[in-house]
């Protein structure tokens, strides 16, 4: 709020020569004041629901027995560090796998029309509506103790393959719910590709893999970066699926939950939350600068 009035104050001397030329009542004359008035509700909401809670969270992180040292402890505590590293590795892996699957599938869906095409695209967006708990439940049905993969592997090899309650199960679930949003972004970008560019590359002798590497991927790059950043951020913060699969899975949101509810270590939970927020924010900011500011648009 005060910043807005500050702008109004610094602008007014610059306006005075205009006034002296005899155009005092131009509607643009009150623009800074009006702007400040119009921004006030948004600024109030921003302060009340984002700025203040965030400041409070940061303060709580430093409010424990260790003080500001709690923030350092998130990196020095072996348990926390381990949780951070495995969350980063999981999110990076999910992002790479999702981008690979969604790019191939998205390009295919844009370029080929077949009976049931529209229905398939609609079905692919289905997981968007599911809460994390439902995703977790589906992973258990697929790869859990009574799951499909377990039954099939037992029939075939005699051994039961069960991986739902581990990082592998979480990976599967995250890829499953990340694919829809990435595939939609890829399809939107692929629709806009100029087919002449590919024809030009082919006429110059480029085989299909070179056309993909030199023409298609560079053209899709901004969309892939923005979709990948969102995918990464979502995987970093997702909780429901992990919670459904097993309480022992060592990812950051689970660690925060455990510190908060079971250990009542509120300062550590807050410090970890701030760290999680910072990393995710940094990933999005990096992607935004790499993609040239189109990340927000793709969200």
């Amino acid at each position, binding site marked *: 709020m005060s910043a807005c009035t500050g702008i109004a104050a610094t602008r007014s001397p610059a306006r005075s020569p205009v006034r002296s030329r005899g155009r005092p009542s131009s509607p643009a004359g009150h623009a800074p004041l009006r702007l400040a008035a119009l921004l006030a509700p948004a600024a109030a909401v921003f302060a009340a629901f984002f700025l203040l809670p965030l400041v409070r969270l940061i303060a709580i992180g430093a409010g424990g027995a260790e003080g500001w040292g709690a923030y350092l402890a998130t990196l020095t505590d072996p348990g926390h560090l381990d949780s951070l590293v495995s969350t980063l590795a999981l999110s990076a892996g999910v992002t790479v796998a999702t981008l690979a699957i969604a790019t191939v599938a998205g390009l295919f869906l844009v370029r080929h029309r077949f009976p049931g095409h529209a229905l398939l695209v609609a079905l692919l967006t289905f997981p968007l509506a599911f809460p994390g708990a439902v995703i977790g439940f589906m992973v258990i049905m697929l790869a859990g103790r009574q799951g499909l993969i377990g039954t099939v592997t037992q029939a075939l090899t005699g051994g039961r393959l069960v991986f739902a309650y581990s990082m592998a199960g979480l990976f599967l679930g995250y890829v499953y719910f990340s694919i829809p949003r990435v595939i939609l972004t890829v399809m939107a970008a692929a629709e806009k590709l*100029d087919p*002449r*560019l590919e*024809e*030009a*590359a*082919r*006429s*110059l*002798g*480029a*085989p299909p893999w*070179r056309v993909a590497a*030199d*023409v298609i991927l*560079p*053209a899709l790059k901004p969309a892939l970066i923005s979709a990948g950043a969102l995918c990464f951020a979502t995987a970093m913060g997702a909780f429901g699926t992990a919670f459904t699969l097993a309480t022992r899975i060592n990812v950051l949101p689970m660690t925060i939950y455990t510190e908060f509810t079971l250990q009542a270590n509120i300062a550590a939970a807050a410090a970890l939350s701030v760290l999680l927020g910072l990393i995710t924010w940094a990933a999005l900011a990096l992607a935004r600068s790499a993609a040239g500011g189109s990340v927000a648009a793709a969200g």
Partner: protein
Amino acid sequence: MPDSFHLDAVPVRLEGCSKTWPGGARALEPLDLAIHGGETIVFLGPSGCGKTTTLRLIAGLESPDPGGRVLFGDEDVTALPIERRNVGMVFQSYALFPNMTVAENVAYGLKVRKVSRGERAARVGEMLDLMHLGEFAGRRIDQLSGGQRQRVALARALVVRPRVLLLDEPLTALDAKLRDSLRLEIDRLLRTLGITAVYVTHDQGEAMALGDRIVVMARGRVAQVGTPREIYYQPADGFVADFIGTMNRLSGRVGGGRLAVGRTSLPWPAPDGPVELLVRPEDLALADGEADGHLDGRVAAAVFLGDRTRLVVEPPDGPALTVDTAGRSDLARGDRVWLRVDPARLLAVP
């Protein structure tokens, strides 16, 4: 000019090439055409006439219906995809790679062919100089004008020494002045290189200026193949006559070795009966006054075009005639005029 700029003149032959889309629509009726080595052939026609489809068949971007064959020299390339045909393509939309500089765009085909870095740089440099693009080598594509972009596209297509150069409406996206200068440049380039070139356009001016031969197409069929002069002065049918330049139609009747058009009569050795005749505006001339064999009429419109004045003359009966006369003419709407017709310039068209 270095020797490397003279390219092999590969003849191209299309044998029984037709194209039917999956939905059953016929884009191209069976076409047989021999393009000589080093020739510039222009496919001309309205949109949807099959000219671009023919170009894409030669390029290898479409394959002909079963039975059709495309030959480069003695080699049957029908089954080869475009990337193995060694053709150069230039598109209306330029289709330059936006993620590469001018030099990288031109070098792309050489890079794909694994030409060594040193030779690549030398050949790209030569080609950029030939196209007067030397100073733009490091520029990004979005920093170039339309004309510069199309010159880059030409350089990129030619640097790999293609067997055939295929140009799909390359000047259509440019404004009129630029179009003329780039057309002259393309003409010079094609003559210098001696390459076989196939050029698709809907613009008859471009076709006349560039083509050694023109293939006029309509609704998937070839209407006429010929030199620009043949197409202009001896159109095969009414469609070609109307599509190329401006053409006047005269309806007359032959009787006893004379042709009657309105109240006028000319000597005309032909069997008796009604005839439809065509005549170009520049083959009609204003006469001083009424005389035997002159057509008469009133000026319905006079359009001053600078170097000439184009008159629309309405005879008492029959359709209006377009006549070109001197730029300094002071005839105006409503004036009575007489037109002299040289019987030798009249075309009888089926």
